[in-house]
């Protein structure tokens, strides 16, 4: 994407968001839903997939329209496009399961305001071909889903003694309730960030210093 370089392949576009530039653990974007809906693994995955759909569909459309949209009105256009797909997801979830809709609450509508979505539309989709934008956005979305699941899974295991609603430790487990309360989100997020930072620092010590610099910049 840097001028003069070959455009990256679709696969590397895809994998970029999934891992190297994971929206949650590397770019630390979209923290509002990250803290709010990760009380269980199922909620996390549903929220992640909803966001992935919005991200992929709106980035694809932003990319399709990129030659028609004057820069003065681009943000307005992006927001309209994003809001459209959020509305679509909102109806779709109501049609699939009302209990899931209740569990996700206002956060489905708040995907509109997820800075990850507008960020990708502006930083990637608006200057790349539709297929590249679609791959990149899907990768980012799945990376977001993975991140949400890693937080939500841990919170559900510790805070309720369950995973996907299945009891893990038997009836004598005393749930660590704080983990499903708001502070738990910060604890688990901090734990994962710390783990990633340690791994990155270890790797950097063995590798070139550039890796560390990049990591610090991204974080």
């Amino acid at each position, binding site marked *: *994407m*840097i001028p003069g370089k070959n455009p990256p392949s679709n696969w590397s576009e895809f994998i970029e968001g999934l891992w190297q530039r994971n929206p949650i653990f590397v*770019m630390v*974007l979209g923290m509002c839903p990250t803290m709010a809906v990760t*009380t269980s693994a199922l909620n996390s995955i549903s929220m992640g997939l909803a966001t992935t759909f919005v991200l992929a569909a709106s980035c694809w*459309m932003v990319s399709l*329209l990129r030659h*028609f*949209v*004057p*820069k*003065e*009105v681009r943000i*307005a*256009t992006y927001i*309209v*496009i994003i*809001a*459209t*797909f959020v*509305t*679509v997801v909102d*109806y*779709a979830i*109501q*049609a*699939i*399961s*009302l*209990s899931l809709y*209740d569990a996700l*609450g206002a956060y489905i509508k708040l995907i509109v305001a997820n800075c990850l979505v507008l*960020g990708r539309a502006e*930083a*990637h989709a*608006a*200057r790349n071909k539709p297929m590249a934008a679609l791959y990149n956005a899907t990768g980012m979305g799945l990376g977001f889903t993975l991140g949400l699941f890693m937080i939500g899974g841990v919170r559900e295991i510790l*805070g*309720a003694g369950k995973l996907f609603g299945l009891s893990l430790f038997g009836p004598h487990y005393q*749930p660590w*309730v704080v983990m*499903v*309360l708001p502070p738990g989100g910060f604890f688990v997020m901090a734990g994962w960030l710390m783990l990633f930072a340690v791994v990155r620092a270890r790797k950097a010590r063995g590798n070139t210093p550039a890796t560390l610099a*990049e990591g610090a*910049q*991204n974080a």
Partner: protein
Amino acid sequence: MSEQELAPPLSTATSSKAMIGALGLAATICGLIIVTAYEGTLDAVARNKKIATERAVFKVIPGAKTIREFVATTGGIQPAGPSEAENGVKFYAAYDQGGALKGVAAEGSAKGYADEVRVLYAYDPKRQVITGIGVVSMHETPGIGDKILTDPDFQKNFEALDVHLTDDMKTVANAIKVVKHGTKQHPWEIDAISGSTVTSKAVGKGIRDSTEKLLPLLLPKIDKLSEGKPT
């Protein structure tokens, strides 16, 4: 983000026509998408909502076989239709296999700790008591506020919560009151869950507000429901 590249090179000023055109194009496409999604999911959403309500009613009135939806107004009781009557209170009448009235269920809601707590309560017109509650929706703190569903002591409040009307059938004789845990003395009091007082109070207030509106309209005409054919 490290990907903040330079904005696309500034071209000369864009004409307003181009801007309006672009916004109009985006809005038109988006409008079509939204309407298609809405139309496509409408039936499924309505079906889901109906199933959810019926499931909740069956849960609070065990033994019910069929459910009919009514609206109670000052003018009488009517089957709920697409045109909702002003000031009407919606409720559900549940019948057993033989078609006899099994009980009445209605919704009450009040602000809880996090958001609106919407409960469905079952009312037994013969004994003039509330015989059970279920939650339609709530976003209370998991592990604390949601004890209103799981706490057996709290549920016991709703085995026979007294809501009998005064003799002139104008008001509920004793307003439902939520009291501190362990201090329940009267059958119209609700023993709060210690630690979840706000949610307990919301349940009590939701039921109180709803019963005070519904019961004076409903009870004088309850016979019409018994045959399953209200006028």
